[in-house]
């Protein structure tokens, strides 16, 4: 059993604070940036001075998730990020080129490694436990989630802090556009969770996850979905809400229709709220737990009770992930 005991999100929405998602924010441009909090409750000014956005948002979201779970120090910290600390990487590269390799500031180089967020969290918490960072494009967060679930299964940890983090920059927008994704709104965010082997105050549990890499046919996805539901003793008609990582009707229909259900569960395209990025499924997980917790739902007819949520994210049709959430 994998219980979600604490959640937090910093995203292009008002996703932190007392009334999360109160007033939906729409993207005004191709670059959908986070609404950032005042970091002073969690990060010392001497520490924050070096932190680029991905690090600030990651550290703060981690602190918020731990606070909600009532945990001071997790047994393990596992993060997933697609592009890592891309702002620092491009800053160091740019200076390298402009200064012709002379008199280069070391700080952006030091902060550019993908594991910076996980290590900063460990440093601030003085957490010596298992510490891991995955960077597997559209499966970066799913890798982190799978590792965490295994740690709990192995009984190597009782509480694991996991997170999905990515940041958007002008350069990343240009690059993704060139590779054919010019219709997408490029987003960013940090979503963190405390996963535990005991429910404590959990609102939801992760009932299963499946990933399908470059499926040749949609039947490969539906077969994994059937497998996921069966293993979790759930029927498709029991799903109260589908969070879909696509606003494409064809994608939605290809998975729903093939399940032969008498009606289709309400679906919501979560990327309207967070934009497209490698670890957007982490935002979807946060949103799914929020739906279960608050029973609410932005801009759509509200289901009376949300007990089972299916997240399906077909990231650029290469990385398909399915996550099933159940209310505790």
């Amino acid at each position, binding site marked *: 059993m994998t219980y979600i005991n604490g959640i937090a999100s910093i995203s292009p929405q008002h996703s932190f604070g007392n009334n999360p998602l109160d007033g939906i924010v729409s993207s005004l441009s191709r670059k959908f940036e986070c609404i950032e909090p005042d970091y002073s409750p969690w990060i010392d000014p001497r520490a924050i001075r070096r932190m680029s956005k991905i690090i600030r948002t990651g550290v703060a979201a981690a602190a918020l998730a731990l606070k909600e779970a009532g945990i001071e120090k997790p047994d393990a*910290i596992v993060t997933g990020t*697609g*592009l*890592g600390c891309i702002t620092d*990487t*491009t800053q*160091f*590269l*740019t200076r*390298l*080129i*402009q200064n*012709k*390799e*002379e008199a*280069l*500031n*070391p700080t952006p*180089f*030091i*902060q*550019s*490694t*993908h*594991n*910076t967020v*996980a*290590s*900063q969290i*460990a*440093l601030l*918490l*003085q*957490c*010596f*436990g*298992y*510490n*891991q*960072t*995955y*960077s*597997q*494009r559209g*499966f*970066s967060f799913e*890798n982190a989630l799978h*590792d965490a679930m*295994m740690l709990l*299964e*192995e009984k190597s940890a009782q509480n694991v802090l996991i997170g999905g983090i990515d940041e958007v920059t002008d*350069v990343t927008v240009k*690059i993704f556009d*060139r*590779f054919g994704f010019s219709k997408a709104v490029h987003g960013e965010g940090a979503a963190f969770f405390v996963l535990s082997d005991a429910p404590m105050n959990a609102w939801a549990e992760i009932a299963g996850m499946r990933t399908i*890499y*470059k499926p040749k046919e949609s039947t490969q996805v539906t077969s994994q979905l059937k497998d996921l539901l069966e293993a979790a003793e759930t029927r498709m008609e029991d799903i109260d809400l589908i969070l879909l990582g696509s606003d494409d009707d064809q994608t939605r229909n290809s998975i729903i229709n093939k399940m032969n259900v008498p009606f289709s569960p309400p679906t919501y395209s979560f990327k309207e709220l967070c934009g497209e990025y490698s670890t957007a499924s982490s935002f979807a997980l946060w949103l799914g737990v929020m739906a279960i917790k608050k029973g609410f739902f932005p801009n759509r007819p509200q289901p009376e009770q949300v007990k089972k949520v299916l997240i399906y994210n077909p990231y650029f049709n290469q990385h398909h992930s399915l996550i099933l959430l159940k209310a505790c």
Partner: protein
Amino acid sequence: MESRVHVVGLGVISAIGKTVDETLTSFENHRHGLGPLSLFDSVHRQLPVGEVKISNTQLANELAIKGSFNRTTLLGIYAARHALNSVKLSLPWRRGILSGTTVGGMDRSEKFFSQYVAGADADFSLVKDHECGSVTERIAEDLGATDHISTINTACSSSVNSIIYASRLIKQGYLDVAIAGGVDSLTKFTLNGFNSLMILDKELCKPFDADRNGLNLGEGAGFLVLVSDQVLRDEALNSLCTISGYGNTNDAFHQTASSEDGRGSFLAMESALRSSRLKPSQIDYINLHGTGTKNNDSSEGVAVQRLFGDIVPLASSTKSFTGHTLGASGGIEAVFSVMSLVHGCVFPNLRFQSKMAEVNFSPIREFKNALNVRHVMSNSFGFGGNCSSIIFSR
């Protein structure tokens, strides 16, 4: 019952050879691979580096690869193919690849940036496989190992962490065959990055020496083929050794520096010993992380001394041969560790002359074989305090 994890295949490419046999010969002859930079132009060309002595064109030709790939991908495919080709698998097992890398496709991305920053019409195809995860996907597709693909980036401990994660997947029954290790190529980005930290030695590095002055950067790839008990049995494979223990911890001291008492390193090694149920006295050889920097070697040395007490096993840093291959170091040194077990040998720590004041032991200076090597420990410690240690047993 949990399966054991068997190493059945190896593949390595570095400054000291493109095969396991070439590598062994280099060790026997004390022939390091450090020398002047030739891969790209740089104002720092005087700094010694451990280049793989093959161009991208030659790599692609040898691999008969169509399409244009970055150097990291080519090196990775080279070593991973060698590893997998040495193992005969006939049944449809679940196969995955777990790779550690820090630079990804940076060798081409930095070329793109030169054009981009100059306002020229930049060639966007150069960044097609920039992401760490993309490199691993190219390797996975080449090997037909796409049932599980993971890329780990925990700085210099990346590929040990990949091997550890692969072991856990096999033990828990999620995977049958794993190609695990890592790859990194030399880039202007990392050369300048480490230079800005002032931890590069202008001469050939001297790991664990009292007068050491820093590290030399290297590149390469090292992969192991790991299988479960069932695969070993059903395919009648030969187990070279097993992965008997491991530890992944965080030093939580500073973003780049290791703690003076080496607490992260100590905890990682101790955790590896505990999970292997071995006593410190049973370790026959330690492949040290030993980068040659004042900070790492002191911190690691203190931790080793504390853990092993008066009887420190034979130990050496093979980075004195290959340079520091960053994310690939754990994978490359895992291959060296298995070689040590299989051939009953230990590798010298080149250019060591005087013992560090903080410790009572010195690394070995000579290649030795005809030894009874049963348990080898390999350490990898990275920026961000990521400390990992792994034990191979025969």
